[in-house]
C-alpha cells in the first residue's frame, strides 16, 4: 500500500494567490513527515519537517504545513506565492527511523 499519497499532480495558480498542496500518509505509531522542493534541473531541498510537538510547522520561503493525525494529512500551504515558487514538491515520510518514502510529486506552476 502506498504510504504517502499526493492528491494533485499539477497545481496551477496565479502569482500572489494562496496555495495548498495536499499530502496524506499511512498511519503509523511514530512518523516523521517532510516536504521537499525540486527546482528545474536541481536536486531536492528540504522545505520543512515534522518530527513531534507543535502540529504547525514553518519552513523556508514562507511555506508551512500542518500535521493532522486524525486525518493522516500533512498539507503544505503558502498564503501568497511567487513566480519563483514554480517547482515540483514532494511529500515524504520516514518509518522506523530509516526508510524514507516519497509521494508522487506535485508540480506547482505559478503564472503571472
Amino acid at each position, binding site marked *: 500500500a502506498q504510504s504517502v499519497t499526493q492528491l494533485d499532480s499539477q497545481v496551477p495558480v496565479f502569482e500572489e494567490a494562496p496555495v495548498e498542496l495536499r499530502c496524506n500518509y499511512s498511519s503509523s505509531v511514530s512518523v516523521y513527515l517532510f516536504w521537499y522542493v525540486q527546482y528545474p534541473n536541481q536536486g531536492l531541498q*528540504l522545505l520543512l519537517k515534522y518530527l513531534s510537538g507543535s502540529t504547525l510547522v514553518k519552513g523556508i520561503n514562507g511555506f508551512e504545513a500542518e500535521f493532522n493525525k486524525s486525518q493522516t494529512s500533512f498539507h503544505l500551504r503558502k498564503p501568497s506565492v511567487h513566480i519563483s515558487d514554480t517547482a515540483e514538491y514532494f511529500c*515524504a515520510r520516514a518509518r522506523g527511523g530509516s526508510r524514507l518514502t516519497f*509521494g508522487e510529486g506535485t508540480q506547482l506552476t505559478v503564472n503571472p
Partner: protein
Amino acid sequence: DVKVTQSSRYLVKRTGEKVFLECVQDMDHENMFWYRQDPGLGLRLIYFSYDVKMKEKGDIPEGYSVSREKKERFSLILESASTNQTSMYLCASRRSGGPKAFFGQGTRLTVV
C-alpha cells in the same frame, strides 16, 4: 554542510551493459538510499542500506543490486541495463533516526 556526491551527472549506456552508479557522502551517515525519479511517479525507493554490508530492498529492486563495502560509499548496479531503466537516479544519505536526508544532484541515465 553534508555533501552527497554522485559520480556522473549524465550517462549513456547500451542495452545489456553492466552499469555502476556511485554515491559518496562525507558525514558518516549510517543510512544511504537509491531512488529513481520518473514523471508522474515521484521518487521510488530501489534499495537502502542502514550500515556497511547491510541492505534492504525498496519498492522496485528488480533489475538492480547494491554494494556498501565502506560506510561512505553506496553503489547501485544495473547487471544488464535495459531501456526501461532510463531514468533520473538520486542518492541520499541520512543519520539513523535523524531528521533530514541529504540528496545528491542526480544521475540522468539513458539506456539505448
